[in-house]
């Protein structure tokens, strides 16, 4: 698969992504309130919290879709708070979306190939001719995308229209599209939503596989606590736009603030 990456270009100990006192307002609503966190290379971090806590907003601000009213975001040590979304993507950040943002008018294969866009160098003139350099490039990328399709076990549906797929498969295709960009940081917004136990197990397997084999750093928003406990190295909890806990899964699970806000107490 992908060649193992060499030694990191930045001093070890520097986090891959640093969110520093970031605030986001929508009119009167404070969606994020001076949130600070770090995501370190190679780890799987889970972001949890009740609905409306600001989790998706956090991912959106990292993606560059919103710009924070205060605070900074550093990726690989450099400040990139004001970048446009496509520039953030070019840095190596890929993501999936809460409501599955597949391109319904295209096939699964084309959707995943779209994920590959950042790696495609081309001029439209060459592509108008197709035969020659453009075709060779297209086939190269097709070969890479097919490896992702193999990895996520979606060979059978590669020509299907993305809009015709059941929800669980759509989420898997979305993951494939994100992986096609060979990202350094993968942001997943509720990748297990609406899945049954088997599908969740498959998804966990894929996520762990991506982290293991490619060394991709992963941050995911997730509501299913058993999944969170199982696969994450670290858990960050948000509530009303503020960070209320940050640490190892078992630490966060035991944190009183988190229990009050989100987890609740079991009455055995």
């Amino acid at each position: 698969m992908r060649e193992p990456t060499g030694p990191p270009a930045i001093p070890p100990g520097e986090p891959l992504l640093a969110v520093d006192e970031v605030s986001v307002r929508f009119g009167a609503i404070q969606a994020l309130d001076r949130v600070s966190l770090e995501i370190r290379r190679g780890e799987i971090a889970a972001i949890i919290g009740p609905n409306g806590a600001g989790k998706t907003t956090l991912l959106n601000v990292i993606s560059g879709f919103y710009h924070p009213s205060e605070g900074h975001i550093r990726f690989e040590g450099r400040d990139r708070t004001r970048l446009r979304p496509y520039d953030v993507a070019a840095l190596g950040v890929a993501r999936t979306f809460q409501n599955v943002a597949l391109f319904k008018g295209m096939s699964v294969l084309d959707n995943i190939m779209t994920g590959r866009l950042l790696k495609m160098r081309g001029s439209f003139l060459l592509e108008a001719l197709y035969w020659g350099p453009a075709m060779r490039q297209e086939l190269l990328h097709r070969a890479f995308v097919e490896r992702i399709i193999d990895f996520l076990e979606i060979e059978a549906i590669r020509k299907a229209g993305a809009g015709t797929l059941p929800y669980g498969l759509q989420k898997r295709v979305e993951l494939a599209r994100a992986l096609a960009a060979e990202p350094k940081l993968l942001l997943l917004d509720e990748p297990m939503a609406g899945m049954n136990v088997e599908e969740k197990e498959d998804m966990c397997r894929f996520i762990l596989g991506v982290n293991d084999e490619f060394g991709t750093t992963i941050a995911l928003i997730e509501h299913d606590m058993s999944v969170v406990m199982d696969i994450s190295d670290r858990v960050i909890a948000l509530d009303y736009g503020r960070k209320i806990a940050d640490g190892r899964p078992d630490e966060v699970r035991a944190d009183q603030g988190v229990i009050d806000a989100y987890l609740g107490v079991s009455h055995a």
Partner: protein
Amino acid sequence: MIYREAGQFKSTYASDQALFPIRQDRVVVGLAVAAAVIAVPLVADEYWLQAVLIPFLIYALAALGLNLLTGYAGQVSLGTGGFMAVGGYAAFKLTSAFPGMNVLVAFLLAGLVTALVGLVFGLPSLRIKGFYLAVATLAAQFFLLWLFNKVAWFTDYASSGTITAPPRTVASIMVTGPAATAPVRYLTALAFVALFALVAKNLVRGRVGRSWMAIRDRDIAAEIIGVRPLRTKLLAFAISSFFCGVAGAEYVFLYLGSAETQAFDINVSFLVLFMVIIGGLGSILGSFLGAAFIVMVPIFLTNVPHLLGLAMPVALQKQIELMVFGGLIIAFLIVEPHGLARLWQIAKEKLRLWPFPY
């Protein structure tokens, strides 16, 4: 059964991504091309060439252009007539200023000029979406036509306000002008539209087409994935306008002979939009099917009552034409929003299984 593709396995990605992966398709297309190039000029009479086939090919090219912009890239445009006008007038100015220029080159240069104009009018598309953009393209439509009307330079100061295609030869064959025969003009239009269709197909099945469709389907997600919206939309406007500009040049030089701005008014914009909707948004084949359909409706309406022995006054025919167009648009959008192209696909699916029902 006829259309069964069992046994045709693809062992390389290259063959999977070929233009016509299925053997039956290759046969049919081969036959169609042979018929179009060889049989038609021999068999068809003047009326069919002049009134049906030549305008069909020209409109198909314009529909192709609009389909790239609206069907693939999702940018609604009501300015097609205006862009065709740019092509027509640009070709006229080029041929009158450079009498030695090959007229086919003039067509292409006219397309290039139109592409630049399209680029300018496409700039608002970064801020404006959906029907707002349609209104912005209306600005292009009305402004351009007003410009060509008012500024006499565009018509070489002709008192009649019309532009006339000068006679030009290519390899000693008269291609434009009163002496150019219908078969020659037909073949010229055919060559252009075939070439452009190939280019369009190549673009839409590759990187450019995918970035267009991504913007069309979910522009925000596309941007977050790395698609650059302005660049993508501007490319769509430029290429689409190029197509429409060449179509406009052909419209004057190969079909009308001479034209005023009225030939490019808002009705043309609507007509081409109808072709694209009925034919199928986001389909190369659909552009052809839609153009054929729209060109045939008036012919049908003229000839059928005649065949049935009914006399229909011209005004009534126009009214029924409007009603039929309007009604068909609604019917298509209800029954098959993806147009004739999808119906064709469904027919092929059925052919795959025929004579079995499922």
